[in-house]
């Protein structure tokens, strides 16, 4: 019952917001809608942080199991001053972005190629499915055996992890392609290259960007696993190092920073998405991009 209610009230809210965008709200309903939720989110964060700081000591949980928030901050400063945190952070961030870009490019290229060559898609689809299901991060030790303790294993794991959601999404767009749109372009005597660039590519954009959004979050996972398994640099390495030292605060800090990298990458893709897909009617209800 509740789900039905929310589903039905959503479009109505959207229309209402569209119809009076700049008007001063009557009764403060609109105000509460735009500022209420973020304020509540911040309040939740404050409550959780306070509980985290004071609850474990009260319950007698030792610091090496759950370090307090203040310990995390102190450890962060120590990491910055003595452990070259910036270097680790930049290494992980740049490798994540690189892996994401390469994996995304490869996934898109293969997705379009297989979409244009249905016979090949049929031949390869069982293997694509198998590889898609296989846990790609489990290949990391194998890549270390093959390529040694350098940047390649984690980069390849990341590329593999990012590759599939993007491939599958692009392929999906090519499958649901509006044949009539393609026929229209053909009837105008358009060359195949032009049809691809002017019809197929823009048509697949929503899917490509959805794939990229998933890929952005997976890239951080790929890099982290690569760093955990082998290497001397990166936040994943700090996690494994901190674990060896029983330095729980260090592990928590590294996890926090990894999450930050993931969030920033996800946010960057969504920003691009709202720019590129501005022509979709539902964009009106999405968080507004800067005009």
């Amino acid at each position: 019952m509740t789900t039905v209610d929310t589903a039905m009230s959503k479009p109505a809210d959207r229309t209402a917001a569209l119809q009076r965008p700049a008007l001063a709200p009557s009764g403060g309903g609109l105000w509460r809608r735009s500022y209420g939720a973020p304020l509540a989110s911040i309040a939740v964060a404050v409550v959780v942080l306070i509980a985290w700081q004071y609850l474990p000591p009260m319950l007698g949980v030792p610091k090496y199991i759950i370090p307090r928030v203040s310990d995390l901050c102190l450890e962060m400063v120590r990491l910055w001053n003595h452990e070259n945190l910036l270097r680790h952070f930049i290494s992980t961030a740049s490798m994540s972005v690189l892996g994401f870009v390469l994996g995304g490019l490869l996934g898109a290229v293969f997705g379009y190629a297989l979409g244009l060559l249905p016979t090949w898609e049929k031949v390869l689809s069982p293997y694509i499915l198998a590889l898609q299901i296989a846990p790609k991060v489990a290949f990391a030790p194998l890549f270390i055996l093959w390529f040694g303790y350098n940047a390649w294993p984690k980069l390849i794991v990341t590329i593999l992890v990012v590759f599939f959601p993007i491939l599958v999404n692009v392929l999906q767009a090519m499958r649901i392609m509006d044949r009539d749109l393609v026929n229209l372009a053909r009837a105008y005597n358009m060359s195949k290259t032009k049809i691809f660039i002017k019809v197929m590519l823009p048509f697949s954009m929503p899917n490509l960007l959805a794939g990229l959004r998933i890929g952005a979050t997976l890239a951080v996972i790929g890099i982290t696993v690569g760093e955990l398994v082998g290497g001397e640099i990166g936040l994943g390495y700090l996690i494994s190092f901190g674990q060896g030292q029983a330095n729980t605060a260090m592990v928590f800090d590294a996890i926090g920073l990894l999450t930050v990298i993931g969030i920033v990458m996800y946010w960057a893709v969504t920003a691009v998405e709202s720019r590129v897909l501005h022509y979709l009617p539902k964009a009106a209800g999405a968080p507004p991009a800067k005009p």
Partner: protein
Amino acid sequence: MLGTSTVLELRDVARRFPGRSAGAPPFTAVRNLSFHVGEGEFVSVVGPSGCGKSTLLNLIAGLDRPSEGTVYLHGAEVTGPNSSVGFMLQKDLLLPWRTVLHNVEFGLEARDMPAAERRERALAELKRCRLTEFADRYPYQISGGQRQRAALARTLAISPDVVLLDEPFSALDAQTKLVLQKSFAETIAGSNLTTLLITHDLSEAVAMSDRILVMSDGPGRIVEEIDVGLPDRDNPIARVSRPRASEIVKHLFDALHLGERADA
């Protein structure tokens, strides 16, 4: 009233498709199709659903080749997509990521034409279809009727010799449909365009065309040809109010055996 020269001609055209399963007999969509459309003439094709109207359209647009017979355009055989044929479907097929203006330019982009000239022609076409003020809107921002007019503007922008309309009004509500039929009729009459309209709406066929071809199904062939012979081709609303128009509709109704059909 009609131009003397033949623009479009079909001679004994048949189109068969392979059977669904191996060994199944081929499916004949249309056969023995022969007709011609003169310059500036407006011809409608009516028939039950599944009588091969869309196959006919694809054959003329050059998207498909006949199994037998030949399609001629200005006396030359149609062997592939031809930029002198414009076609328009029930779906407006506007590209959602383009503005109305850029959508109208779409057909011209297949040609080597300077961007400025393309823009100029698209704007002229928008003006003719009374859409100038919507040039910078995206398809989702305009109404269904406006979208169909934009699709017509795109179709006309390539200056086609023949315009193929495949049920362009059937997705619209009754009032929009009447207004749009009038708007299309004015535009088409004003440009002396050769037009082939495929429709299942009998009164629409009578209101808009010079000649009506009645198709029957299984496989599709032409069973009757009716000369409408009414004035006011540019004003369908005035035309359908004439008694002779309802006579023709009644006749078509009988010709298609609509009264006896139980399936739809």
